[in-house]
Every structure is written in structure tokens, then in C-alpha cells.
């Protein structure tokens, strides 16, 4: 979706009006081009909604069936890191919105600053996610690869969590279902993190191009569309946070 003109030119010599270099050949006007790519981005986000929809459906059914396992599984997540990560991602959404604004008002310095901040916050989010995943690995809560039901069969053995929630021991069959919780936890956060990684990658590309002033001369389409993607990933997290972290904390 970059603005080079790879499309082959029309065969017949056409009378071209002067138009900006970033306007693609098959569009009549810059506005049409903007509208079109913007709409396309929204449609792409629809597919993303449905992509996560399958996971959310699975999550809801399993949670309904194995609620006690989900409660105690959720108690294993760090509410501090989870909340911090939510704040980080919300802030990155804000800086991304500001980046789009900077591009619209054509301030290159501001644009680079906010893109940079978004990048840092994005990396920060992934870092915190990494810390949390690492903790899960340490505690043997990675389903299929390294899993132990000890913290659920005997919660008192897991002192830090026990101190806070005084969980009762789960019956063995229910304790086994915590693996379902962590399977969904890793599937959901993993898919989300994958989207973050892709987003951060594109962000680097945008920063490089922004440095050469590509987006501060009136052509904001790409930054704006990327912003939509970034906010969408934020929205997914807005739902993951209460669904995964905030199950019966009282």
C-alpha cells in the first residue's frame, strides 16, 4: 500500500491532470484513494474481529463449563502486570492517535516523536508480556509443554497467590481443566502478541519513511490506516484484560 506507481500506465496516451506523486494511477482523485484504502482497512479489521471471534467463542464456552478452574487459573496471573500492560497499550493508542494528528497537521518532528513513543510503548507491552509468559514457564503453567497442576491441587504450596486469595484446592478433574484455561490464555495473548509484533514491524517501516517526510506532505493515508490497525489491537486487549485477569478476584 505504499505510494509508488507500479501499476502499468494506460496504453493510450491519456491526458493527465497534475496530481500528487502518491496518487495511484487508477484512482480519479486523492480523496477517492483515501476513502478507498480507509474502507479497505476497515474491512480488513472486520476479518480480524471474526478471527478473534472464534477464540472468544471457545473461551466463553470453556469458561462456562469450568468456571472454578478459570477462577484459580486467573488468580495465577499477575494483576499488576496485567493492569500495567493495559495502561501501556492505552497510552500507545493515544500516542498513535497523536501521530496521526501530527501527520495531518504536517509536523514531521511531532510525527516522529509520537511514532517513536508508540514504538517504545509497543515494545514495552511485549516486554511485559514476555515477563508474564516467563513466569508461567517457571511455574510450569504452559499447557502441553510444561504443565503441573500442583498449584491447583494444593494452592497452599503456591504461597504468594495463596496469601492473597486463599483458594480452596480444586478436585483433581477440575484441576486438570486449568490446562484449558492456560491453553486459551496462551492462544488469546499469543495471537494478540503476534498482531503486536506485526504492528511494531510496520511501525519501524513507517518511522523510516516518516523521516524522509513521506507522510507530512498531505498524504496521511498509510499512517491513518496503520493507526486503525493499532487501535484495533488495543481493543482486543481491552477485552482480554477483564476476561483473562479479572475473574473473581474478591
Amino acid at each position: 500500500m505504499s505510494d509508488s506507481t507500479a501499476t502499468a500506465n494506460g496504453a493510450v496516451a491519456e491526458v493527465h491532470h497534475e496530481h500528487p506523486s502518491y496518487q495511484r494511477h487508477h484512482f480519479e482523485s486523492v480523496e477517492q484513494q483515501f476513502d478507498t484504502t480507509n474502507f479497505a482497512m476497515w474491512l480488513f479489521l472486520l476479518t480480524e474481529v471474526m478471527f478473534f471471534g472464534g477464540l472468544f467463542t471457545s473461551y466463553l464456552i470453556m469458561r462456562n463449563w469450568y468456571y472454578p478452574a478459570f477462577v484459580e487459573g486467573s488468580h495465577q496471573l499477575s494483576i499488576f502486570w496485567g493492569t500495567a500492560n493495559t495502561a501501556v497499550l492505552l497510552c500507545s493508542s493515544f500516542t498513535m492517535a497523536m501521530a496521526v494528528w501530527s501527520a495531518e497537521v504536517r509536523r514531521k518532528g511531532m510525527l516522529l516523536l509520537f511514532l517513536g513513543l508508540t514504538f517504545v510503548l509497543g515494545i514495552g507491552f511485549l516486554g511485559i508480556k514476555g515477563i508474564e509468559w516467563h513466569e508461567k514457564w517457571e511455574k510450569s503453567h504452559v499447557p502441553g509443554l510444561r504443565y503441573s497442576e500442583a498449584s491447583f491441587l494444593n494452592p497452599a504450596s503456591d504461597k504468594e497467590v495463596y496469601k492473597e486469595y486463599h483458594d480452596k484446592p480444586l478436585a483433581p478433574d477440575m484441576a486438570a481443566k486449568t490446562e484449558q484455561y492456560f491453553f486459551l490464555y496462551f492462544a488469546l495473548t499469543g495471537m494478540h502478541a503476534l498482531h503486536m509484533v506485526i504492528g511494531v514491524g510496520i511501525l519501524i517501516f513507517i518511522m523510516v519513511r516518516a523521516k524522509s517526510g513521506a507522510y507530512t506532505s498531505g498524504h496521511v493515508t498509510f499512517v491513518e490506516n496503520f493507526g486503525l490497525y493499532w487501535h484495533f489491537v488495543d481493543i482486543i486487549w481491552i477485552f482480554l484484560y477483564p476476561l483473562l485477569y479479572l475473574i473473581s478476584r474478591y
Partner: protein
Amino acid sequence: MSAATIVTLPDQSTARIPKMNFLTKENGLLSWLLTGDHKRIATLYLISITFFFFIGGALAGLIRLELLTPQTSLMAADTYNKVFSMHGLIMVFFFLVPSVPATIGNFVVPMMVGAKDLALPKINLLSWYLYVLGGCMMIYTMAAGGVDTGWTFTTPLSTHYLNTNVASAATAVFIAGFSSIFTGLNFIVTIHKMRCPGMTWFRLPLFIWSNYAASILMVLGTPVLAIVLVLVVLERTVHIGVFDPAYGGDPILFQHLFWFYSHPAVYIMILPGFGVISEVISTFSRKRVFGYTAVAFSSVAIAVFAFFVWAHHMFIMGISNYSAIVFSLMTMLVAVPSAIKIFNWAFTLYKGSITFETPMLYAFGFMGLFTIGGMTGVFLGSTGTDIQLTETYFIVAHFHFVMVGGMLMSFLSGIHFWWPKWTGRMYPEKLSQLAALTTFIGFNLTFFPQFILGTLGMPRRYAAYPPEFQALNVFSTAGATVLGVGYLLPILYLTWSLKYGAIAGDNPWQATGLEWQTQSPPLTENFPEIPIMDHEAYDYEWLEKQQQKEVASVG
């Protein structure tokens, strides 16, 4: 113009293919592989789906040969299972889903709406590359020993009980799914944003409406298939997952998510075919489609209802019976728009001026076969009869009547219809009429006996079967041979026509679509200048006036 045909060709002694067209614009392999031109991408798609069609067809031939005898005489049971699985996977995901939209749709949609190209040419190219990548994965799967899940990847069979190449097959389908998402996305955006001045929604040809409806399904349905395949592969790797009954998962959840895509998928396959039929019937009866609005909205209605019917694949699989009733009712409702279309097409013929060129013959074949396919679908949508008929050859026959009798017939109809536009040359008429007839006869011979087999109870996906079913299976295999000839013929004469076919001129059918108002083959950006739509779709009187004007100006 003779009395029996509408074909008007230019004087062959003087006519030439226009020197400048999208095929001759640039040369060299790279100019094709890096093209952004929708017509070139459509051509690439046409070549690749034909390739996969013949692989799938060869596998179908093997299936029919094996079923010639009641025993597993040609191949062992596990080979047979792999053959039918690969047949299903290739035909569904690499032929039927992309067939009309990615080839014919890609070729004509921008021209029909009066645009220079699809809205996102690079995404369009990307979609073809994804298709090829997925296709390569599929070929790799086949070379590495195949997969025997059936095309439905039923859990827990696919996740815990098979050690064939499930992961690579799922990856192939996953990638091909994204190819389909991008095509659909591109169409929706193009139809919304790229219409030429004067082209209002109700002046769009019905082909556009039906592709629009199919595209909605692609965009909203396919991602669910993608995630469900990711979960299947995850479950295979880590041996735990939400579909695993041993760990408290629910295998029926897989069915829900899988059919949420895969039922709309059959509408993705058939809706564009409806579009082709609307164009063809109108052109060859010289009449506006009867009840344009009804036909247009029935496509959209199918797209909307398509998302409410998926569980009719699971009536006997242990879903709640109350839920089954709801889904059965919705299934009955989705059948109505198809009935509306059939009758509207039939009445388009009323007081028309009908000629019987090959596309029209295929369209007639489509209407007969699709009526049977659609009606037998109601048998399966009604919960009570579904118990008896599901999972037997009745399902196989129903599905093939809709997909082969419906979709493939309309695909061939469309290919013949737009061939002159695509290549600038006509196909040989008599030979192609013969091929259409052969296909129709072969098809009925192949698949009609399967309805009886299914009613008698012969289960599908059986490598061996009780001997009393042999007679009907022999008929079916015999028919498949005829059908095979019917499919080989077009490939031969269409290739021949590339060099020796008569020069077609701009508008051999006297059709009204915008794509026919430009040269054949078209220019790279379709029109010398962006057209202005100043008439309704299928306005044959406008066309006549236009031609009289041209004659007058030449005179």
C-alpha cells in the same frame, strides 16, 4: 445476422486483434509476475485454477475407478481415504472458492463498474501469490504422503488419531483462505468506491450484486476457518486444546466454528455462479432480467441468512435438538431466495428472443441441475429426513449437483461467454455445444445414481461397499468417463482458439455490460476514458440506439 444466432463478428478478412491490449502491453515473464492489472491477474488465476481443477479431477477419476468394484481392489483403504480427502480439499479450496470470483470476477468486475482496475491492485496480486503459496503447500502435502482427514478436518480424528500431514494441509487451506479474504475485500471496496459516474447501485449488473454478496461472506466467514485451523494445528502440536474430549474440550465446538465458515463457503462458491447465469440468460434472450431488484436482493438475502444456518451440518452430531429446530427453520428460509432466482431466470425468457449459443446451453443445464441440487438441499435441511440421508451418497450427490452442476456449469458458461472479450477470439461454436451436451449427460449419469445409492443407505467415504450397490456405482463411474471427456474438450478447443479462433470484435454477443463497450481484448486500464453510465443495466434498446448512431456516424 442469421436468424438463429446473435453473434455478430467483424469482417474476418479485414478484422485484426487490436495491437494495443492488456496482453501485448508488456512482454516477459516478469511483466506478468509483477503485474497490477486485474485482467492479467485473472489470467494467472485462470491458469492456476485450471491446473488444480485437473489435479482434483484426476483424483475424482481415481475415486470412481476404485468404486467400480465393491472391494478395495485398486488401492488400499488408507490410499482411498487420502485420495478423496485431497480431492475435496483441492476442489473446494483451490478450485470452487476462487473459481468464478478470482478469474471471471477479477476480469470483469472493474470493467462492469467502469473502473480502471480493482481498488487495490497490489493486494490483488498478493492474493494470487497467497493462492499459489497455498497451492504449493497442498502439492507438498500430497507429495509428502497426503492427508486423510476428509476436507472437513473433523476433530478429534484430525487432532489425535492421524499421523498424516494434517498440519501442512491446514496451513495450505489457511493461506488459501487469506487469498480468498483479500479477493473479497478488494471486490467490496471496488464496488463501493470505484463505480464510474452515473453507475448507481441499481444500475449495476447482477453479476456485481452476486459477487458483492459472496465477497461479504468471504470477508466475514473465512477468518473463522483460519482460527479454527490454527487451533487444530496447535492441538496437534501441544496435545491439548478446546476440541479434545479427553481434556474436557468439546469436539462439537470445532463443528460449530468450522461450519460457521464452511456453510457460507458453499454460498461463496455458488453466488458468483448465479451472477454469471443472470448475465448469460439476459444476453441470449435479449431481455432485462425479470425482476432485477428481486434477483439483486435475493443475493444479499442469501449472504445474510448464510450466517444463521451452519448447524444443519450437525443435526445428528449431538447439538441440542431445540437448536437444531432453529437452524432447520433458517435453512428453509435461505432456500427461498434461490427459488426466487430460478423462477426469475425462467421468466426472463418470457417474450424474449432466445438464441442457443454455448453459454446459454450451459446456463440451461445449470438451471435444471441447480433446481435438483437445491431441492435435495431442502431434504437435508428438514431435520427428519436429514437423519436418514445425511452422511450417505445422497449428500455427495446433492453437493455435486450444486457445486458441479451449479458452480462448474456456470463457470464454463462464463468462460465461454467472456472468452471473446478475454482473448479477442471466438471459440468453435459447434464443438463447444457438443462439449456442453456431453458435460450435461455425463454429469447426470455420474451423480444421479448417487441419489439412489444414498437413499439406499450407502455411506460416503467408503472404500469398499456391500456388493448390491455395485450396479449403480458402475453407472456412476461410466458417467464420470463421459464427464471427463466433457471437461477435456473445452481445454483443447479453447487453447486452439487462442490462435485460430475467429476474430470476435468488441461485442460479439450484442451484450449491454460496460465490459462489452470497450475493445477485445481490453486496454490495460480498460477504457480509453472513464465511461459514464447513462442507462439501466440490460438496456437493449439503449444498445440498439448506440449501434445505430455508430452506423450513422460511419456512414
